[in-house]
């Protein structure tokens, strides 16, 4: 409850209106209403299976890989309809990066992991790419640990380092939004701390949406919190408000650990 400073109202990055989604006949999300502010950290909390990861995966259309998934309603990024059939999902995913629950570095060198994304979208000279890789690794606070072994395998890194590498990889393609799906759940407390500090520094430049099961983490890092329960968005708002004066009984019970 300490670090999340009260922030002035800012621009809205993602607008959600009457958003519902289904897997086949199972309704995973029910008429969500939410605004995700630009360059702030928004935390999604809620018990397992409440739909928060599903929603996250709609923002970069990763759900397209699941044939039975469909959605209705409004989901806009700076006014652009993200559910449109004609949307270029390849370009969307360049603008909306994602970090997964389990670190998933490619079985390539550290350098090639970071360079993989940029190379997909345009061709760079060697020098430009070197520069971009270094910048991305610096932004992800891992440069000093890997600068002497850029060309050795990324799989030799520790779990926490791998996750920061994955963040560097996501940053390298120059996204506006970073989606993080429980990025620390597979990590030890020390690595978790490192990632949390990193997330806070990244919020200066990126709009960050983080799904977490860790209440303390949500409280520590986020500016905004949205509480999901059984496919519904129960309550959302400034993290401080949610934590100190939740309007909803369910929210209060959940964050105080009485259920979930």
């Amino acid at each position, binding site marked *: 409850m300490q670090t999340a400073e009260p922030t002035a109202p800012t621009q809205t990055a993602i607008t959600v209106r009457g958003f519902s989604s289904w897997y086949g006949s199972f309704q995973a999300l029910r008429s969500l209403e939410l605004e995700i502010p630009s360059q702030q950290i928004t935390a999604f909390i809620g018990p397992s299976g409440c739909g928060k990861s599903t929603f996250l995966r709609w923002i*970069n259309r*990763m759900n397209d*890989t699941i*044939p039975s998934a469909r959605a209705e309603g409004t989901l806009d990024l700076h006014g652009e309809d993200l559910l449109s059939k004609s949307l270029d999902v*390849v*370009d*969307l*995913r*360049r603008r909306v*990066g*994602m970090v*997964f629950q*389990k670190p*998933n*570095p*490619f*079985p*390539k*060198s550290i350098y090639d992991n970071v360079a*993989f*994304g940029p190379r*997909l*979208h345009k061709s760079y000279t060697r020098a430009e790419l070197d520069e971009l890789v270094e910048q991305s690794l610096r932004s992800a606070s891992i440069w000093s640990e890997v600068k002497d072994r850029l060309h050795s*395998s990324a*799989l*030799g890194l520790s779990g926490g380092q791998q996750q920061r590498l*994955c963040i560097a*990889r*996501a940053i390298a*393609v120059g996204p506006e939004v970073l989606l993080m799906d429980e990025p620390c759940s597979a990590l030890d407390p020390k690595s978790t701390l490192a990632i949390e500090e990193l997330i806070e520094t990244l919020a200066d430049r990126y709009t960050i949406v983080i799904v977490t099961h860790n209440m303390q983490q949500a409280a520590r890092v986020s500016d905004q919190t949205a509480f999901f329960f059984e496919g519904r968005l129960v309550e959302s708002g400034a993290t401080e408000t949610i934590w100190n004066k939740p309007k909803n009984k369910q929210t209060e019970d959940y964050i105080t650990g009485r259920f979930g």
Partner: protein
Amino acid sequence: MAAVRSASTRLLANRAFLTLCLAATSIAMLVLAILLLAIFVQGWSGLSWDFLTGLPSRKADKAGVFVALMGSLWVCAICGLLALPLGVATAVFLEEFAQKTRFTRIVQTNIMNLAGVPSIVYGILGLTAFARMFGAFGTNVEDAISLGSEESLFFLRIPFGSSVLAGGLTLMLVILPVVIIATQEALRAVPGSLRAGAFALGATRWQTVWGITLPAAVPGIMTGAILAMSRAIGESAPLLVLGGALFVSGAPENLMSDFAVLPLQIYNWASRPQESFHAIAASAIILQLVVLFLFNGIAVFIRQKLQKPLQ
């Protein structure tokens, strides 16, 4: 209530099972050892440089294996060069691109079945489709359409007749299902999280396959492919049906040359009444085994080398 089993009973059962497994393994090893021993005793003395480079002869002490060895290498090279790209591409399509529909399920089941079809059936198919081309161009070699001079490396003839090209194509049919299945398994072994990671960076399906999935699957694909090649080099039945000649005077010079292969040469020599030919058949078997071990060795080597960066 289940009866309580004493520790000694369970220990006894454990030991009995262990003995059974050991016995089964020893029988297999013993058979292999006897086989190798018999062949080495018979054939070791016949192995020489002259045997390796010698042409076929009616006299056993002058006969060499050169023509058959070169024939085997030609046929296998053609087979591998065609089966690998085709098989890998098919597997990539089925695993990474195709929707799981009734059609792809039927294709999948068919490939599984094709892998179990006896190779002699492929020989008949090869004879009809490649050697004779369904008789569409007449049945005489004289009627064939020829491209280029017969001495040229690029000489082509339609239909192919009992040529190395027809042999290679037929063996390709034999190993194609094996290559496809091995590649599919290698692709399936690549964690989905890697694909998701690539998609999340804005990679297209093709970029994901080419940049991430295929490289990660290469060790598995290579192992499967080379094991399939070892099968191809040991095949005799389909080539016999195709009309792979038992008496050929020289090594293949182009794709339309007649050819002999090692297994057929071994068959030819072993089926003669003279003891001396049995001896050189054993020598040829040793050579065939060496080629096989070489192939398997390459497979292991590639696997080791390519898996290193993954660790």
